[in-house]
């Protein structure tokens, strides 16, 4: 892993990132997961 490779990966991956995607509150991302088992019934 080197810096140039990491930067290139981020540039490629972020090409279609939504403007509204905010980096804060990763715990909230996990907490907000709806339980798919309930959806499956």
């Amino acid at each position, binding site marked *: 892993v080197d810096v140039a490779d*990491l*930067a290139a990966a*981020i540039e490629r991956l972020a090409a279609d*990132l939504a403007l509204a*995607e*905010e*980096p804060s509150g*990763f715990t909230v991302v*996990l907490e907000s*997961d709806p339980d798919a088992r309930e959806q499956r019934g």
Partner: protein
Amino acid sequence: VADWTIATLGRAIARREVSPLEVTRECLERIARLDAKIRSFITVDAEGALATARELEAELAAGLSRGPLHGVPLAYKDLCHILGLPSSCGTATREYFSAEHECTAVSRLREAGTVTLGKLNMTELALGPFGDNAHHGDVQNPWCPGHVAGGSSSGSAAAVAAGFALGALGSDTGGSIRLPAACCGVVGLKPTYGRVSRAGVMPLSWSLDHLGPLTRTVADAALLLGIIAGHDPRDATSSRRGVPYYERLLDTPVEGLRVGLPENYFFDGLAAEMDAGVRAAARVLEGLGAEIVSLRLPDPRPVVDVSNVIARAESAAVHARIARERPHELQPAVRARLEIGFHITAHDYLQALRLRSRYTRAFVAEVFAETDALLAPVIPEPAPALDAVKAGTVEEVVARMGRFSRLTRPFNGLGLPALSVPCGFSPGGRPLALQVVGRPFDEATVLRLGHAYERATDWVARRPPLL
């Protein structure tokens, strides 16, 4: 001591069949007799442990019990701050690592009646998966000395495998609980990000760090998790979600659970015995009534790239002072991995954080719509020889580190709960391991599957031959 588990010892102490002082003395005697070979401890606090054991014994004599952990001796990775004991974080110095408050998880375990035996060896700054340490000695694998114990919580896994402590805490930023657990044939749980407070633990990468237990059995991991999980005002990322009674859910049958076996990435390039061991474990769970589903996962490599950017940038920020002031003291591979972070731009770091949330939502929605848990290997091969992993140039060593942790790192980026459970031995006697991964905050299902597998096999009864 080597034959007790936390659960069985706790019950024996409660019945007054054995006393906290007797068990603590036996652990200390065992450490004194054998740890020169294993190098699992950095600090042994014999005086403090015996004093605590006496207090706990007096409480029992007065009819007071603090619960199932009353009198159980534990030990902690040397990055958990414990009042009165030094922290080196695996470096040559103690100067940089102090804290105003004790590690919350340690405090909770102390309140639950445990005895602290001391602080455990680890990879320098928790930056490496092999457990080699130039300052405190390479931690030896109790099953096969001369081979890696795994890292970075190397001492935590080795001490439990060797029967020095009934359980331990480790930290996991890219696999540092699960990798040593897998190498040393013990159980290791990385909980969901936010499930266990990280307060009082030296950070490596605060977005990816997780604290969790290493134990001999899954039931013991459930017991410890039940104590250390839950919101902590000292850690802003800790969740306010309620904590289930994990140990009471362990025996719920696994019949009907849908368990995914990945078709891509996780079985690529595995050693044959590891591949066979994990697939055999899946068949055991199938025999218990779980439905094994073969599925293609979203490619984990972007998550690993994103995690690498976050981990390097944050670890360089955390350890800027020691990297600038004492670079000559750091092991070359550790210094090289730290150095990368100084050159990552703010733009790339922020994009990585944004990408992480998006990938996590997509992965969870896609994978757990079809399954209740995933099975995967933890390590690509049984514990390799220490000489082999340290050989070559710094670039070769760093590349080797990346390959060895490629199966655990995706779940740090995704923040999902992941359990390492022993699932056999290679023909040469080195442990094999199974990784069980669940949806966010569903440690109960992960532990339930691990417990069912463990009960259906006899791996947990085996002991390292040299001990």
